[in-house]
Structure formats: structure tokens, C-alpha cells
């Protein structure tokens, strides 16, 4: 099947702006990605990717293996070099952006050898506060309370003094979510957060994130392999295959003939069925 889909096919937020105007119609985007291109050695990993995330949006990034999902996340966070294009967080270009406390990041299920790492859960979660600290970095009583709030928010307060290396995969992932949340970020970036969790753990995790999105208005950018489930929670979907195949609201995704032509309909059907199922229960 030829890859002929245009950029941001039916994109609601992928509007055609002039370089001076990064604002969408309704509100300033928290995140603007413009013509983002990333090379890895001689191959192009991402090509002219464009999309926005507005306040309160929950965007699910899906796509096949090797489609550049994680690279996109890392490019947004300034962890990989951009060959071309621009990423703006809260209206500021990445090179000048310093308010990383406004962004919470949960990396892919860590492969770090944590077994004998002597850090406690509280110590790990407090790392999420370092972005707002200036030299010399000190944690205050208020910071300790923020750590407690974050642990409570994800339901792992009882683990506060435990070693991070002695937790189960699911517990560890919740602790890392607490670390992402401890600075009360406006944008939460989650990279395949449920990969190592069992079905119950996944459901609980997604519900926690959904609660944050609905109750606190935290914007969410979530990369997922679990395409069927993401349809239940995300308000928008970004289908990535090195380029943006589709970016927009679920309704448009489900009704898009162009997406059907590109994906063959099976994926679309799976996602949309889950989404409708969820909507009818909501």
C-alpha cells in the first residue's frame, strides 16, 4: 500500500499558520510541533511532523513499530537533535525553554538496572521537582508535601520509604507517574507507560491519567502500542508512520475514508469500536 497520506490529513489542530502565528483559534497551544524532521545516521526517522496540543487535550500517539513515536517524544523534550523544524513549549522555542517543571515526563518502562539502587520512592519522586530549583538545590518542607500529594494522587503513598528497586513493575510505573506529576505540570508526556503492566494494572493506570486530564485539566500526550485501548481515553489521535498520517478528533478518525484507505480499515475499526464502547458507558 503506497504511503500517500498528506500531512495531518484531517487535523483539527494542524492548521496552516504563518511562522509568526503559533496560536490556534480557541486557545494557545501548550505544544506546537512544526515541520519536525529527525535523522538517525543516514535514515529519516521523522519527516515534517506538524501538530499542536491545546490546554486540556488528551492526545494519543499511535503507529507501527519503528514509526518514530518515541523519537517524537524525545524530540519534544529536547533529548534528540532536530535536523529541521521547530518545537515550541508554552510558546517558547526549545532552545530557550527552561520551565521544565511545566512538563511531566514518564519514560518508557525503564530498563535501568535498579535492583540494588538505594534510592527510596520519595527520593525518586522528588527528582521531578529539580526543574524548578536553582543553585544550590534544596528540598523544602513544601517539596516534601508535594511528593506526598503526588504519591497519594497515584495511590502509592504506602510505598514512600520503600526502595525503588524492590517494587513490582506496576508499582514502579506508578512511582514514575508520581515523579512526572510532582511539579503539577500542565503537560504530561507518557511514553508507552503500560507496556509491562498486566491488564488490570493497565486499566488502573489509564484511569488515573484520565482522572488527571478530566479533573485537573492536565494535557496529556501519550504514546501507546495499545492502540485499541487508547481509543477509550484520548480526545485526539495522532497516527504516526514517520510522517503524520492522521491527526485530529476521534470522530474524524473513525469517519475518515482516507485513513481507511491508508490503514486498510481494521485498525480504524478496532480503535473506533473501543471508543464508542467507552463513550456509551461514560
Amino acid at each position, binding site marked *: 500500500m503506497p504511503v500517500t497520506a498528506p500531512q495531518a490529513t484531517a487535523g483539527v489542530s494542524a492548521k496552516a499558520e504563518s511562522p509568526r502565528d503559533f496560536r490556534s483559534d480557541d486557545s494557545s497551544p501548550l505544544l506546537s510541533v512544526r515541520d519536525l524532521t529527525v535523522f538517525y545516521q543516514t535514515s529519516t526517522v521523522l519527516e515534517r511532523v506538524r501538530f499542536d496540543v491545546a490546554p486540556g487535550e488528551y492526545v494519543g500517539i499511535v503507529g507501527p513499530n519503528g514509526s518514530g513515536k518515541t523519537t517524537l517524544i524525545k524530540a519534544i*523534550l*529536547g*533529548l534528540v537533535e532536530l535536523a529541521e523544524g521547530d518545537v515550541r513549549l508554552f510558546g517558547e522555542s526549545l532552545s530557550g525553554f*527552561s520551565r*521544565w*517543571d511545566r*512538563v511531566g*515526563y514518564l*519514560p518508557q518502562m*525503564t530498563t*535501568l*538496572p535498579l535492583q*540494588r*539502587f*538505594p*534510592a*527510596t520512592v520519595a*527520593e*525518586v519522586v*522528588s*527528582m*521531578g521537582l*529539580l*526543574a524548578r*530549583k536553582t*543553585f*544550590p*538545590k534544596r*528540598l523544602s518542607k513544601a517539596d516534601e508535601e508535594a511528593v506526598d500529594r503526588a504519591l497519594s494522587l497515584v495511590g502509592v503513598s504506602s510505598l514512600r520509604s520503600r526502595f525503588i528497586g524492590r517494587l513490582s513493575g506496576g508499582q514502579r510505573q506508578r512511582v514514575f507517574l508520581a515523579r512526572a506529576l510532582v511539579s503539577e505540570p500542565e503537560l504530561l508526556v507518557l511514553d508507552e507507560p503500560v507496556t509491562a503492566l498486566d491488564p488490570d494494572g493497565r486499566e488502573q493506570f489509564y484511569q488515573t491519567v484520565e482522572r488527571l486530564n478530566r479533573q485537573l485539566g492536565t494535557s496529556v500526550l501519550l504514546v501507546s502500542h495499545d492502540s485499541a485501548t487508547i481509543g477509550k481515553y484520548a480526545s485526539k489521535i495522532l497516527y504516526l508512520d514517520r510522517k503524520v498520517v492522521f491527526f485530529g478528533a476521534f470522530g474524524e478518525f473513525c469517519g475518515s475514508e482516507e485513513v481507511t484507505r491508508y490503514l486498510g480499515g481494521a485498525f480504524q475499526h478496532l480503535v473506533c469500536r473501543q471508543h464508542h464502547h467507552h463513550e456509551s458507558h461514560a
Partner: protein
Amino acid sequence: MLDGPFAQIAQALQYTFVQRALLAGSVVAFSCAFLGVFLILRRFSMIGDGLAHSAFASIGLALLLGAYPLSVTMPVAAVASLLIRKLSERAVFGDAAVGMVSATGMAVGVFLASMGRGFNVDLFSYLFGDILAVTSAEVWGASLLSLVVVLVAVFFYHDLLAVTFDAEYARVVGIRPDRVESVLLVLTAFTVVLGIKVVGTLLVSSLIIFPAVTALQVARGFRSALVLSTVAGVASVILGIFAAYLFDAPAGASIVMVNFVFFALAYTGGRLFRL
């Protein structure tokens, strides 16, 4: 008249060279043990070996040129530490980078030793350490270095912890892992150079590895790991020097043996009490 081991130790403490050995050994052990916690958790356990071997080459060079060894070994070891970091970052695995720098350093040292036959005996004192011959300048140098290590720890504790735990995440919270690691490795290089005088090139990595690994068996948090590691490191040097004095044994080897006993106790205790 000497009655028992305590009396012998009390008498030994009267000697200036023993006092210097204890002081220099303690401050070097403190720095090694403190930095060791970070290095081990960053999977750079053998960097002490690599740096010591590269320092060995530069000691050979200094002796060949008739220069004061520390004036050559300090910068060479610092460059070697940054080279290991660069190699492991871009070209090869971290342990392979350490191995490459280590083998090259040792080869150059042996090569230089074969060129200058007259200083072979001096070079061997660096291989096995000669803590009882520590000079006042070396005591001051080691003390100053320990002070720098303490200051770095106090002011950059959270950065060091974050980078050691997950360097990529540390970048997302605004920390520069490359800078933090470079500071850590250069401090390690200086510490290793001074450690060579205490236990020698062949054993200096034990001052980095043993106390930290011992502490990790029983620590209840990151801060407690740092405290326990430095306590174990300093205690091993003091007890090792006393043991060497009492049994007329080599000081470097005695220090390593004490470290092994500490580890065995911590390992057993950790298992018994499920720490």
C-alpha cells in the same frame, strides 16, 4: 616495653610517618568511597583500575623526565577519565572503554619502565603503594581534594543522584548529565592518583569498589549509602594500617583484606536481617 596490640598501636601513633599515613589514607579513602557509590551505580566500577593504569604510564613518563610524578599524573588521569566518558558515550561500551584505556596505560607504563632502567624500583613502589612514605604535601593535597568532594556533594547532591539514577530523565529536569559526569570523573581521576600512593596502582580500585558495595548491602537510602560507604572506606584504611604495623604486612594488601571482611560482614548481615 610493648605489652599488647593496643600498646603497640599507641606507640606507632607517636611516629609522624604513621600519623601522615593515617591522615592521607583516611581522606583518600573518604573520597574514593564517596565517589565509588556513584561510579558503581553508573556501572563504572572499574574506572579506578583504568585511571590507575593510565596514571601508571604517566608516573613512568614523569620519572623518565625527572619531573614530580603528581604534576604529570594528575592531568593525564583527568584526560583519561574524560576520554573514557567520550568513548563510552559514542563508540564503545563503558566497560570496554575502561579496559582499553587501562591496557594502553599499563602498556605505556611498562614500555617507559623498560626505557629507563634506573627508575624501575621507584615505579614498583607505585604499583604496590607506599603509604608510610607519604609526604606532607601529599597529605595536604589529599585533604584539599576531600574538601572539594564534600563541597560538590553538598551543593550538587540532587544533580548527582538524578544523573546516577537516570541520565536521560535528568536532562528533562534541566540537569546537564555530561557536565555532572565530567566533574565526577575528573574528581575520581585526582582521587585515584592520590590513592595510588596509599594502596598502589594494582589495588586502588578496591578503595572505590569495596566500601560502596559494602554500603549497598545494608543502606536504607541514598544518603545512608554515602555515609556507610565513607565510614567503611576510612575504617578499612585505619584498621589496615594498624594490622600492617602489628603483623609487619604490606599496608595496601592489609587495607584490601579489611575491606573484604567488611563486605563479607555486610553481605551476611544484609541477608540475615533482610535489609
